[in-house]
């Protein structure tokens, strides 16, 4: 791809040459690749056995969140991406204010900072399970795996969005679709052989036992299983006809995500009794128990590598998404210093990725090496998830406002009953936010009031104070008048 060096006008003395790639071909990502990339960012079969313990009721546990969260987020994102490029920051920027647009993309970006270390710790633990279980508790090993894998993934993602799209969508096929299908096929074979299902398969089993707060937390937390459907909308300009293709990708992705969560879990519940699954002492062990029923336990390490592949593919989709949104609004509104606006010859926001990598590395080292951090790390995940929910609230509000403020703006797709969808999505996001203040198991017998204020303090600090500091420090000279590789033509 050709590239050229330009100097941002208005940058004054601080102006530095910004290497800007020539406008890339618009025909880079097909709708099917976008669909698979989205599925890769959202769904996996990693924790399938932990949902299989609920048997047929896991259909309910995923269907209800699909109706109240997946459907609104996907259809609203489909409409917005079919009318405006740039992803969530631009939707909120257009629908509310530029400051709110920055807040939206910041909250999405901030969530990923705690997601990567925990995802890569899972990768390290799974590799250890396969090759040397005693390594799983070794902090140095975990730290090395996290740092090496993270930076290799970052370097690969710096080679352009097309490569990321290809890798993340392929990893979804290899690490989620194929093993998920294999689990379902084995489950069906088990039934065809005349074995009775281990889990009750009658209408009464469709509803989970509602046993109070723990059940409510389980159900509402499952809303978040579908978080991230909007993340790849930032790449719509890389599609040939995003107005038509992005909604098509969203529709198929919605169906695939639900299928991936539900069918393998049900298949496992046919074969391994729920009570037995709980006795296997871990998710990989539960997969081993499943394969042992078919005398193919040797497949476990192969499955483990597939799950790792899917996890890394999903991570790459996230690496490429929020940071790009941050770059775009940073350039357009001058919210980021010129240093962070630098892109490489592939149009990738290299300095944002380097800064992100430095932060993730520090967090990962603390997590891997300090037992005190390991014990409380889940709190950071809760806080950043709460922060991320702010983005959904802004997205739904923006969608409703854009219908009123820009009713004639061309959209390739108009979501049916959008106000209803947006309100349902808002209520679901609000409920998920509220449940985030209920202490999980790890908080033990601690005070709920202390927990509430701890989470609230974290949300205010990361979700509001941090972006406010960026907005406060911004300078007019930071506003990038020269469009970046994908900025031209922002509606």
């Amino acid at each position, binding site marked *: 791809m050709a590239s050229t060096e330009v100097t941002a006008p208005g940058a004054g003395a601080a102006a530095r040459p910004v290497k800007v790639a020539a406008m890339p071909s618009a025909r880079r990502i097909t709708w*099917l690749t976008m669909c698979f990339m989205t599925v890769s960012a959202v769904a996996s079969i990693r924790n399938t056995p932990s949902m299989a313990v609920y048997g047929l009721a896991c259909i309910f546990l995923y269907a209800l969140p699909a109706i109240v969260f997946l459907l609104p987020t996907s259809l609203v994102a489909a409409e917005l991406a079919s009318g405006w490029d740039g992803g969530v920051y631009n939707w909120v920027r257009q629908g509310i204010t530029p400051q709110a647009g920055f807040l939206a993309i910041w909250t999405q970006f901030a969530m990923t900072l705690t997601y990567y270390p925990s995802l890569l710790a899972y990768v390290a633990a799974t590799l250890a399970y396969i090759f040397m279980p005693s390594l799983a508790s070794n902090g140095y090993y975990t730290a090395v795996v996290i740092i090496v894998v993270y930076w290799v993934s970052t370097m690969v993602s710096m080679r352009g969005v097309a490569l990321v799209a290809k890798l993340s969508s392929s990893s979804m096929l290899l690490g989620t679709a194929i093993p998920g299908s294999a689990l379902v096929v084995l489950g069906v074979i088990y039934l065809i052989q005349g074995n009775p299902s281990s889990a009750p398969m009658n209408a009464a089993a469709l509803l989970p036992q509602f046993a109070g707060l723990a059940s409510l937390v389980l159900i509402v937390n499952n809303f978040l299983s579908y978080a991230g459907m909007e993340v790849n909308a930032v790449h719509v300009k890389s599609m040939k006809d995003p107005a038509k293709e992005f909604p098509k990708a969203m529709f198929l992705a919605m169906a695939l995500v639900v299928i991936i969560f539900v069918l393998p879990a049900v298949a496992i519940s046919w074969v391994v009794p729920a009570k037995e699954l709980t006795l296997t002492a871990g998710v990989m062990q539960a997969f081993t128990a499943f394969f042992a029923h078919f005398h193919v336990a040797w497949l476990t390490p192969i499955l483990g590598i597939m799950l790792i592949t899917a996890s890394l593919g999903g991570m790459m989709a996230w690496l490429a998404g929020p940071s790009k949104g941050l770059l775009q609004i940073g350039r357009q509104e001058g919210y980021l210093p010129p240093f962070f606006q630098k892109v490489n010859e592939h149009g990738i926001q290299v300095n944002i990725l380097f800064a992100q990598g430095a932060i993730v590395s520090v967090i990962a080292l603390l997590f891997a090496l300090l037992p005190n951090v390991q014990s409380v790390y889940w709190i950071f995940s809760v806080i950043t998830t709460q922060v991320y929910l702010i983005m959904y609230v802004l997205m739904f509000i923006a969608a409703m406002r854009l219908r009123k403020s820009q009713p004639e703006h061309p959209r390739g797709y108009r979501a049916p009953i959008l106000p209803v969808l947006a309100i349902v999505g808002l209520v679901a996001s609000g409920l998920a936010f509220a449940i985030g203040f209920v202490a999980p198991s790890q908080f033990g017998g601690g005070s709920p009031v202390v927990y509430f204020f701890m989470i609230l303090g974290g949300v205010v600090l990361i979700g509001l104070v941090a972006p406010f500091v960026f907005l406060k420090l911004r300078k007019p000279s930071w506003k990038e008048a020269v469009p970046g590789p994908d900025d031209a033509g922002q509606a």
Partner: protein
Amino acid sequence: MAVQEKSPTWIYVVIVVVIVALMVAGVAVRKHERNNREAHVKAQELIAKFEAAGLKAPDEATVVELFGTDGGAFAADPGSSLLQAELAAQYGDPGPASRSVIIDKDLLRAGVIILEVYAPQKLAAYQEFLKGLKFGETQ
């Protein structure tokens, strides 16, 4: 996969080679020595303890496959806060925006019996971990 921009082939080749190599190595290093008499004796002991506790145990071959002679991955270091963090996290949503849930009271208690059989010297640390958790009922 139809991404219509040329990407360097060597990256795909390296990735495919690494994935295949890891799969082959993973299958190759599976511990076959776990399927011995000691593993079967311990499996029978575990199954008896599960049944005495009113729990449905996996069959003997599966128990041997899972826990071998030493309790496998679970019993390696149940006192490690790194492992405990992983263990507690696996019951929530695994994706982005994941957060912990209130774990069902049944989900971690099997660990006590497993450690009684395979690594009794590590039981105290696991029980200490369980003592610090709050449990609920979801099934």
